């Protein structure tokens, strides 16, 4: 581990800059800068922008759920309000000659989110757990419902829209092209992710963890649990507002949908899917979710059903999320026994894939047989076209499903044994 700081030679002083911690950030920045050269098409840029915004939102959400232990069911409100405020600012730039360069817009979204989170947080952070969750749900629904009433700010049913290209320009950048917006979003992504990471390393961030794990003990150490939760809540609201501002810049429109329970539920799903116990968890969750959403919604009408099943399976079997699943493998890797797992994994891969695909196909078949318009009996799955009302595809799929399930079940004990021995450290002789 190489150390840059001059003073770090003293053993008692911890090094100021640790390269192994900085390197991932530099690599991520370089990757973000290089991505448009690989995926330069308009739709790819749109997806990447959406991903970046979701990452900021999910990271901000995890400041509450993962680091503070507070489950919020109404967090879309803070992102949405920041976004609405930014659209209004954009319109003021356009019509009222407000001098505000576009790159700074998300900051004001963040400040608006912060302001609102402070107001709500003053009474909602009194308690954690179930009560906090219920209050967040109630406040979220309250604001989502008032968005139809308060037309001046929320624009009623059609929402409010703006134009990002009307602001003062510098160096000839007017943010008319998708690529310029991408770099702006990527810049804010790195900045906010770094800020959130550093926040989690401050004494404040550590105390938030302490309050999450045992609020009484933290209180006896002299920290007000309520105050600690309020600070976390406000910080989270700030970063949600930044995500909202970026959303406003990207899509130039915000509607009631940005505030409602569905959006709040999706961010919970993303964060939990990625893994709440790790800083990188929400990032992985956001990337995987956006990819799944984009790809699945192209091919199937019932993609939300699959996501629901995936989410429930994650909660029941892998509460540490995808990142937790990856992190489980670090011990076998460090013990040098990772190779023990390769063969059982390879044996399991094909039957498991067939199991997943055949159950999904059965669902598709059932859905088609029930809901396709009358007379339309042909459907296509994996490039094969067949009659969904005939008996043959049903038999084939059921046989595949049952067969692959039997094989998976028979393989499971050997995989379990391999896992046990890969995680077992022999005493040195």
């Amino acid at each position: 581990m190489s150390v840059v700081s001059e003073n770090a030679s003293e053993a008692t002083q911890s090094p100021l800059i640790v390269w192994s911690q900085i390197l991932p950030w530099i690599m991520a920045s370089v990757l973000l800068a290089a991505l448009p050269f690989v995926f330069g098409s308009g739709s790819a840029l749109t997806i990447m922008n959406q991903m970046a915004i979701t990452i900021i939102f999910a990271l901000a959400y995890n400041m509450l759920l993962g680091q503070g232990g507070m489950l919020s069911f109404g967090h879309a409100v803070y992102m949405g309000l920041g976004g609405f405020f930014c659209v209004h600012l954009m319109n003021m730039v356009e019509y009222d000659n407000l001098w505000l360069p576009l790159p700074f817009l998300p900051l004001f979204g963040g400040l608006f989110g912060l302001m609102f989170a402070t107001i709500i947080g003053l009474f909602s952070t009194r308690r954690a757990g179930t009560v906090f969750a219920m209050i967040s749900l109630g406040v979220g629904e309250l604001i989502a419902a008032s968005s139809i009433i308060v037309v001046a700010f929320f624009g009623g049913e059609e929402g409010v829209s703006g134009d990002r290209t009307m602001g003062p320009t510098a160096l000839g950048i007017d943010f008319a092209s998708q690529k310029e917006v991408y770099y702006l979003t990527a810049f804010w992504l790195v900045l906010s992710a770094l800020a959130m990471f550093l926040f989690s390393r401050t004494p404040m961030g550590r105390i938030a963890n302490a309050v999450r794990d045992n609020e009484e003990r933290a209180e006896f150490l002299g920290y007000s649990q309520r105050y600690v939760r309020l600070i976390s809540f406000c910080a989270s609201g700030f970063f949600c507002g930044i995500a909202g501002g970026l959303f406003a810049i990207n899509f130039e429109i915000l509607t009631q949908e940005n505030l409602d329970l569905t959006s709040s539920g999706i961010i919970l799903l993303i964060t939990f899917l990625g893994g709440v116990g790790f800083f990188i968890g929400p990032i992985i969750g956001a990337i995987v979710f956006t990819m799944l959403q984009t790809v699945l919604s192209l091919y199937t009408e019932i993609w939300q059903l699959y996501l629901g099943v995936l989410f429930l399976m994650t909660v029941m079997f892998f509460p540490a999320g995808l990142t937790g699943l990856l992190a489980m493998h670090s011990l076998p890797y460090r013990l040098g026994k990772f190779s023990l797992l390769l063969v059982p994994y390879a044996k399991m891969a094909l039957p498991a894939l067939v199991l997943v695909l055949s159950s999904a196909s059965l669902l598709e078949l059932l859905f088609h047989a029930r809901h396709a318009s009358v007379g339309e009996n042909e459907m296509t799955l994996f490039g094969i076209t067949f009659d969904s009302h005939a008996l043959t595809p049903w038999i084939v799929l059921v046989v595949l499903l049952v067969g692959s399930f039997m094989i998976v079940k028979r393989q499971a004990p050997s995989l379990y044994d391999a896992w046990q021995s890969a995680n077992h450290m022999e005493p040195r002789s």
Partner: protein
Amino acid sequence: MSLIIVNLLDGLVTGLLLFMLCSGLTLIFSMMGVLNFAHASFYMLGAYFAYQISTYLGFWVGLLVAPFVVGLAGALVERYGLRRVHKYGHVPELIFTFGLALLIEELVQFIWGKSQMAYEQPPALDFTAFAIAGNAFPAYKMFMIFIAMGIFLLLLYILTRTRIGMIIQAALSYPHTVQNLGHNVPLIFMGVFGVGTALAGLAGVIAGPALGTFPGMAFQLGSIVFVTIVIGGLGSLWGALFASLLIGWLQTFAASYNIRFADIFEFFGFTPPVDMANSALRDLWTLTVPQIGPILPYLLMVAVLVIRPQGLFGRRET
């Protein structure tokens, strides 16, 4: 005056319906400490199951069978889902029930599609029970009131007057002691979860024809149900009853009196802004009471939490 009586009755219907959901939710909460986010989804399942049964066997069979099916589904969810997640703590439990609510909505759309079902009240109840000054009161609403009242009295009797009720009440407060006395506490938990969801299912069966049977019905009522039990005080059955009726009446009365906010402001001596179209406060001036009806329960919840965080009837600060 007659309008007030009609509104009182309408509000009673809404309130009692809410209470059928809230009572089960409160029982489950005080027992396991977990708020079942999917409770309203079981209400929706009740309506859909009853509709499906009624297409073959008629409304009355659906009324009897559907709640049992829903209760069975609830018990299975407790046994094979919730009990599994229980060891991870309360927050994952809450997330589990939230995911379950999403999944049930998707499943309902998968099986029955997105449009509203033609689930209707039985012909035997399709008449006007009585009329007050020209306002007809349908017999089906009377039927809903009787069912809900009957269930409430039955529940009260079982919980306070029977041996089973005593054991349940004891298991709520001292599960370990009750277990040591030789009762099967996990089974009691599963049973209460099943009965709670069956009650929600029954509410769905009788509300389906009146309020519509569609995939959004769970989330539409669900958040109101949570607001209600927070207002009443988490874990308090009487609080749930009081808050349900309060919210039922609040919403009914707000919907039927078309008072403009502008009139109220002018009464207190404010003058409307000259340039109404560009005023930032224009929404306040054009607002009417029926418009704010849907957000009243949430406003009430925020007010209650600020003034009395444990809820109206809650004993401890939750």
